[in-house]
């Protein structure tokens, strides 16, 4: 595929994620469960996923929709999961907060902040010891808030000392639920904490999908070549609230204005127009395709049945007789 087509595909994925999450916001207003949206951070997911391969493993957290969609998740099954329906990726048991999709290589999602960091070294260790697909690496997505948890320090030390094929991807979006990053740490950068562990660290504009993909590709190539971990800090911003509904009354309006002007979709659209790769017609086509897929997904999800009560205990233990 040509570079131009690649760029257009990336743009379409950005728009798909945005539309998917806005659809869930709309459904929430109608009574569906809330979600943690990644509006404003889509370029982080799309850029990093473009640098990963099928043999790689991904761990994510409560804000996972962008990661899952960029990895190719089925929108209908995702939405069904959020609505707690039987066709969801986890049969409705997870809801939006801990969606894993093993067949996509998106494993062990935890909504405990830091939970993904706690399990990621084990996934990478299995790869190092040959339990996974040859040459596979692990990428773990987490936030600036997770970097404040002690497990961040423990995971970095273990990954560096054991030389695990692990890519740390920190989406520093300035927010930790209702608390601004500046209220939780003296420094603006997570990178300095990571650098203290002596691994290669790169800080990138997380709203520039091309820059993210390039940096991720460099890191992934390096990990595959020497097996040592790398750290990527993606500087981005959470444009919507923490968990829907959220009126963002606690957010400085000026900060929002500043970052809305840096909306990753806006930046990419402008870039592609300037490059003559995209025009109004092209954009309309993308938007039409996206809208159609979202509607189809919503219909699928809402048509999906509720799980049977038996699902409550069906998967707690491996064998039935194991349950007391």
């Amino acid at each position, binding site marked *: 595929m040509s570079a131009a087509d690649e760029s257009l595909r990336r743009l379409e994925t950005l728009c798909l994620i945005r539309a998917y999450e806005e659809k869930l916001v709309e459904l929430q207003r109608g009574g569906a469960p809330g979600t943690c949206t990644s509006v404003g951070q889509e370029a982080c997911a799309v850029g990093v996923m473009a640098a990963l391969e099928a043999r790689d493993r991904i761990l994510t957290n409560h804000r996972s929709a962008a990661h899952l969609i960029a990895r190719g998740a089925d929108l209908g099954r995702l939405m069904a999961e959020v609505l*707690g329906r039987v066709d969801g990726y986890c049969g409705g*048991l997870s809801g939006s907060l801990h969606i894993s999709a093993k067949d996509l290589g998106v494993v062990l999602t935890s909504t405990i902040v830091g939970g993904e960091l706690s399990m990621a070294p084990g996934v990478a260790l299995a790869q190092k010891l040959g339990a996974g697909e040859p040459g596979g690496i692990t990428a773990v997505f987490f936030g600036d808030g997770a970097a404040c948890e002690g497990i961040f320090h423990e995971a970095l030390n273990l990954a560096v000392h054991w030389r695990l094929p692990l890519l740390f991807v920190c989406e520093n979006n300035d927010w930790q639920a209702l608390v601004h990053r500046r209220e939780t740490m003296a420094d603006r950068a997570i990178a300095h904490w990571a650098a203290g562990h002596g691994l290669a660290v790169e800080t990138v504009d997380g709203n520039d999908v091309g820059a993210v993909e390039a940096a991720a590709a460099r890191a992934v190539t390096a990990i595959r070549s020497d097996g040592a971990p790398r750290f990527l800090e993606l500087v981005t911003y959470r444009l919507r609230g923490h968990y829907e509904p959220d009126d963002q009354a606690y957010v400085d309006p000026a900060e929002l204005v500043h970052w809305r002007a840096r909306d990753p979709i806006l930046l990419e659209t402008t870039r592609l127009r300037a490059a003559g790769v995209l025009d109004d017609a092209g954009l309309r086509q993308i938007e039409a395709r996206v809208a159609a897929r979202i509607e189809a997904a919503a219909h699928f999800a809402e048509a999906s049945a509720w799980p049977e*009560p038996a699902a409550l205990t069906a998967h*707690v233990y491996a064998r039935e007789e194991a349950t007391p």
Partner: protein
Amino acid sequence: MTRMTVEQAIHQALAEEMQRDPRVLLLGEGVATKHRDLVASFGAGRVRNTPLAEAIVAGTAVGAAASGLRPVVDLLFAPFLTYAMDALVNSAGKLRALSGGQFEFPLVTLAMTGSGWCVGAQHNHNLEAMFVHAPGLKVVMPSTPADFKGLMKTAIRDADPVVFFTDLGLLHQEGEVPDGEHVVPLGRAAVRRAGRDVTLVAYAKTVGVCLAAADALASDGIDAEVIDLRTLKPLDTDSVLASIAKTGRLVVVTEASGLCGVAAEIAALAATRALHRLRAPVLRLTGPDAPAPASWVLEQAAVPQPDAVADAVRRLFAEVAAVA
């Protein structure tokens, strides 16, 4: 008396105790964001947003408590207490005794749990029994707005560490709350409904479940007594035993799972200290030994419902009739 929600009652108790005692301070991820008025009244020094680091937040509260302050620490959701277990179980619960009584730990830890929000098992886990089992800790889990206020004030004034659980299904429930000085002693249960035929023991959300069941049973001529434990440690064993002595029948209803849960403790109490009063087997109606699911239908299926309680009690009487 003022009509208010559980959420408002908790807030009022915090405000009154911070007013009353300058040693009281509030720590936690988002407390300053959520309680802006307390920041305004008592200053940013006493109402502190924290980094996302439950272990150090709890540990800091423990250290401050032993050094002359009276911290209230909000750790948000009960599953997050797993990050604070060393501070609570090994430090706050043990160092008073291990030091030969040199230190006091007047500390309140807040956490929410329970069904109602479809957030799944990493936000909803009724693990209060773990803290009942741990030495040196007290555990509170009220069911009415008035008790939330009265027990919160008592917990803050208590010289021992108290883990204070809020059933999030009750947060927006309204009730009459006494204005100003209203304290409810720790370790005192409340008889929510007097009855002669059967004792229903519950706490938090299931108190309402039992009251609803009792109404249904009344129409069958079964007169149920409903006891709200309110404090899980120290347990008000006298009230439970007195009721069993009167009714001869015990049904324990909890949202938490039964294995080594508070329901087990109450049943054990009957078996060890009221055996000759029991005219029928003790019944435990509890949540399953399974992680809380997100899907609405499953979340409902995981909590004992009024019909199930009423039916169980009816079967109890039927069986006994059969036996007799």
